[in-house]
């Protein structure tokens, strides 16, 4: 390949990188500005720097509402992803290990229902949860979040890579099925488990629609919903606090993605947004 070609490709790559980095840079530099500085519409960080003010401001917002949101986000995503991944691993194990009655039918049924969009299930779920008295509580977020259908699909793929001999050898030793699953199976597919766990953590963290439907009480909001409601007492938007909130909402995910990138390779199983 000619050198001039290479240069041209690299210029294109740099231009694309600028486009992809622009909102990140703008969000970070905005976190240093108060409202007046934001209105000047520049790319330069604020001087004097208001980063600490904004940070304190967002934590002080409505008597510490933001702390509730932060803890809620970790609670919902943590419980939902751990339980959901474990149950998905169990279900995937069942599909891999056993030839049972209704196996194929069940798999098609699960995949079929998984394709029903959230918009068709969330409203009936809202009415169902109303009768359970789940609305406005963490249950209304955690219970739907534990279900991870694509996790089962991914787990089935990972389990299929475990050779039959491994199970047979364990059976010979008289190991119980539950031990085979816990002690031999799970460690073998640990990279897959990590991937499903991280993907579902991110998916729950980002699930705006579910929270929007189920929650009406500010203290129960996760970050993703909370930050969209930040406003002054008279109802006006407070841009600097919204942006700081947005920054803090995205930060844990950015850390996850940059440090654990190898587990978060794109999966051809739809979106997490």
């Amino acid at each position, binding site marked *: 390949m000619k050198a001039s070609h290479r240069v041209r490709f690299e210029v294109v*790559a740099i231009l694309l990188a600028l*486009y992809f980095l622009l909102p990140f840079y703008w969000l970070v530099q905005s976190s240093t500005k108060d409202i007046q500085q934001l209105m000047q*519409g520049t790319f330069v960080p604020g001087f004097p720097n208001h980063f600490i003010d904004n940070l304190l401001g967002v934590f002080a917002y409505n008597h510490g509402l933001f702390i509730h949101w932060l803890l809620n986000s970790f609670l919902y995503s943590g419980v939902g992803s751990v339980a959901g991944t474990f149950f998905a691993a*169990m279900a995937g194990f069942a599909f891999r*290990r056993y030839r049972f009655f209704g196996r194929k039918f069940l798999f098609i049924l699960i995949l079929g229902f998984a394709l029903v969009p959230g918009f068709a*299930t969330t409203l*009936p779920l809202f009415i169902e949860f109303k009768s359970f008295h789940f609305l406005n509580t963490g249950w209304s977020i955690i219970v739907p979040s534990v279900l991870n259908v694509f996790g089962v699909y991914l787990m089935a*793929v990972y389990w299929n890579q475990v050779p039959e001999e491994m199970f047979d050898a364990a059976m010979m030793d008289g190991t119980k099925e539950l031990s085979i699953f816990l002690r031999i199976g799970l460690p073998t597919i640990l990279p897959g488990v990590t991937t499903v766990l991280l993907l579902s953590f991110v998916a729950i963290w*980002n699930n705006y629609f579910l929270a929007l439907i189920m929650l009406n009480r500010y203290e129960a909001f996760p970050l993703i919903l909370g930050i969209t409601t930040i406003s002054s007492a008279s109802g006006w938007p407070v841009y600097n606090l919204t942006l700081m909130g947005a920054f803090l909402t995205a930060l844990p995910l950015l850390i996850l993605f940059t440090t654990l990138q190898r587990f978060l390779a794109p999966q051809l199983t739809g979106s*997490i947004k």
Partner: protein
Amino acid sequence: MGSGFRRFSGKADMRRFQTVRAYLFLLPFLVFFILVTAFPVLYGGYLSLFGQHGAKMWFVGLSNFKSAFTDPLFWQGFGMPVFLLLVQVPGMIVIAIFIGLLYERIRHSVVYRLIFYLPYAMPGVVAGIVWSYIFSQSMSPLVPLWNLFGVAKPIFITLSSVRWILLIIILWEWTGYTSLIVYSTLVSIPKELGEAAEMDGATWFKVAYYIKVPLLRNTVFVLFIFNSIGAMQVFNEPRMLNILLNLPQNYTPAMYLYNQAFAYGSFTYSIAMGLVLAAVIFVISFFFMRQSMKELDVHA
């Protein structure tokens, strides 16, 4: 004779044993699956047959569906998904293929791969907020940039420009992700294929177009379906733009559903429209289902 009989009963026993074990392992998942998906879908189907005003409900048969099919606001809402389907999805896949090929040709490609992938890590809601501010009249830092490019009037978010800004946001979110999927397919293509052609004097473009792109067929096919499903359901980003702009209540089908239920209180009508939307998506997904069944080989 006896042993043959025993073997038979052994097989049946084995199957029963396996079935019991399998369902024990499936139980926790199935409980949540029924509670959160299977029952709500069926319950939604039932509720869609009722008229409703506040807490009052009465049976109306299929009349909600009849209303949905003849509701111009509902179908106008599909304008946005169709625009994404015709412009964003093919555009993004073409750009992603180009970027995928680019990764093979540039230095430090691992750095670029991470940078291009990062937008995927940003929640859609945050992306919506940040981009809408970037294009807002009050805060936009882009004004000098437009001057630089000789655009007389700076581009702000307005009712007429909003679909293009939405396009910019969605491309920003998904192109890097898509390019990585393309790249992982490209990596699996034997290098010799392209190298041999280049030895014979084929240009970079010819190698890409005639040798590599055809091998991406299946990937492109799956990408197209996934992105079409996503386009049909678009909600978060336009809803965030809605903060700065008063978008019509039916800007997308999902927004119309939400507004009908929570702004106008027409729950059962909204549920019926949700089922129609599901049917539209199901038709698109059907092909994907068959594809993934083949790959996973659950027939065994």
